[in-house]
C-alpha cells in the first residue's frame, strides 16, 4: 500500500504539481467546451481564455503567498 501511495504521489507531483486548482480548472473548462460544442457552438475561444485566467490567478496567488 505504501508503494502504491508513493507511486500515485509521484505521478500527481509530476503532472499536476503544486497547484491542483489549475488541473481542476482545466477539467471544468474542457467540460464546458464539450457541452457548448454539443449544443452547436464552436467554442474554440473558451479554452485559451480559461487557461489565461487560471494562469493569471495562480501566479498572482503564488506571489502573494510569498
Amino acid at each position: 500500500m505504501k508503494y502504491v501511495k508513493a507511486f500515485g504521489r509521484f505521478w500527481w507531483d509530476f503532472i499536476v504539481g503544486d497547484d491542483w486548482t489549475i488541473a481542476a480548472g482545466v477539467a471544468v473548462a474542457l467540460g464546458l467546451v464539450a457541452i457548448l460544442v454539443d449544443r452547436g457552438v464552436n467554442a474554440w475561444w473558451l479554452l485559451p481564455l480559461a487557461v489565461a485566467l487560471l494562469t493569471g490567478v495562480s501566479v498572482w496567488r503564488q506571489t502573494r503567498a510569498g
Partner: protein
Amino acid sequence: MGTASILIGLGAFLACAVEMVEALTIVLGVGTVRGWRSTLIGVAAATVVLAVLVAALGPALQQIPIDVLRLIVGALLLVFGLQWLRKAILRSSGYKPMHDEDEAFRRERAEAEAAGGERRAGLDWYSFTVAFKGVLLEGLEVVFIVISFGSAQGHLGVAVVGAVAALVVVVVAGVLARGPLERVPENTIKFAVGLLLTSFGCFWGAEGAGVEWPGDELSLLALVAFFGGYSWLLVRALRRRRLELAPAEAGA
C-alpha cells in the same frame, strides 16, 4: 512539413535539450568525483528504460481513438505545460530564483565527495544510483512530451528525432566543455517549452472536445503568440508589483 510538425520537432528538441543539460550536470558532478565506470553504466541503464517506455507506450497509445486520445493527452499536456509556464513567469519576474547549473554542479560534487563507498555487483552504488535516477527523472519529462506529441498528432518520429538531436548536441557540448553547460539560456528555453506545451495542450484538448479551430493547424501559431504575449504582460505586471512592494518591505 506542416506547422504542427515543425513546432513538435522544435518543442521536443528544446524540452530534451534543457532536461539533458540538467542531467549532464548531475552526471558530470558524480563522474568527475567518483569515476566514470559506474556513472556511465547508470546513464546507460536509465537510457534503456526511457527508450523502452517510448517504444512501448508510443505505438500502444495510437490504438486509442484519436478524439479521445487528443482530449486526454491535451488535458494532461495543458496541466503539465502550465507548470513549466508558471515557473518560467515567476522566475522571469524575480519571484523564483533562476536555475543555476554552476551552483548545481558544485552541490552535486560536494555530495558525491561526502557519500560513502558502498559497492554492489561490482559497482560504486552511489555513482550508479545518482546517475540512473538523475537521467531517468529528467528524461521522464522528455518521454512524456515525446509520447504526447507523437500520439496526439501521429508524429512520433518527428518528436523522437527532435529529442535525439538535442541529446546528441548536449552530450557533444558537454564533452567539449568538460563541465556543466551554465551558459545555455536554460530559463529562456524553459519559457519557450512551457509556451509550446500549453499551446499544444490547448489545441488538442479543445479539438478532442469537438472544437474546429479556425485555420486548423495555423491556429497553433496564434495560440503560441497569444500565450506568449499574455505571459509577457504577466511578467511585466509582477515585476512592477515586486518593485513597488520592495521599498515598503525594506521600511517595515
